[in-house]
């Protein structure tokens, strides 16, 4: 079972991601509302997988990805964002994210994206 941290400034999105996770494959160990909180919780819980929003107060997702990857280069990060332009996706992937899921998303799309992220 893989440990998962959810990062999103929306509580309803954090709860949606938590609800639709396959409990046999993922165990949610932390949920953060911005990048700064995510970095603190990462150091405490050391998750193997992270879902990451991009537009957040305090510290945005791109900056947070860069810092998380500096702490753990094997971390698997799935960006979940409404920002649907190619440049943003490429920027997140260059910083170390391994997948991108555009909001709005269905439960099936989330599970498929997480499965692809953790298959290798």
């Amino acid at each position: 079972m893989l440990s998962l941290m959810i990062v999103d400034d929306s509580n309803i999105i954090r709860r949606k991601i938590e609800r639709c996770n396959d409990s046999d494959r993922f165990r949610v160990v932390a949920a953060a509302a911005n990048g700064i909180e995510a970095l603190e919780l990462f150091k405490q819980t050391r998750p193997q997988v992270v879902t990451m929003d991009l537009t957040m107060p305090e510290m945005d997702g791109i900056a947070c990805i860069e810092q998380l990857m500096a702490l753990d280069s094997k971390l698997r990060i799935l960006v979940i964002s409404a920002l649907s332009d190619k440049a943003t996706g490429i920027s997140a992937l260059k910083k170390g994210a391994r997948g991108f899921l555009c909001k709005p998303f269905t439960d099936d799309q989330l599970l498929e994206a997480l499965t692809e992220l953790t298959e290798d």
Partner: protein
Amino acid sequence: MSQETLQVFIDGVVRYFHHTNDKNVKVGTPYLVENNKPAAYDVTGIIGISGPYRGCVYFTAPRILLKHLLLSIGESDTSNEHIFDLVGEVANTISGNARSRFGHEFMISVPVMIEGAPNHIHLPAQMRSYVIPVYWKAYHAAVVICLEQ
């Protein structure tokens, strides 16, 4: 504002509702309003826009629509906190999705959620806004676009 630009936001709101359990959303004909008489329902989520376009995009809806929308995305807690969270998330999603057409220079802020209509800080009095009516279940809501290039 061109029809093509408005269509980006129409597509965005339709896409959002198509990801709920009740996909039967309808969009009315957009119309212009003076910013001193802004369109608003009970709760409003505002996204500030900067870059080549400047202004704001907001989603405004009655509480009862937002309560049903929460249930429709599987959220059983329809508290006021979640109603405000949702109206901001809808505005954020519609605005963020618009970057697929306008590119990464279409900069969006984090959402600001308020009761009622945006004030002059978000909605400059000398400008006008396009209102896109949204009909879902028995309720009316609106996406409002106030942008200058």
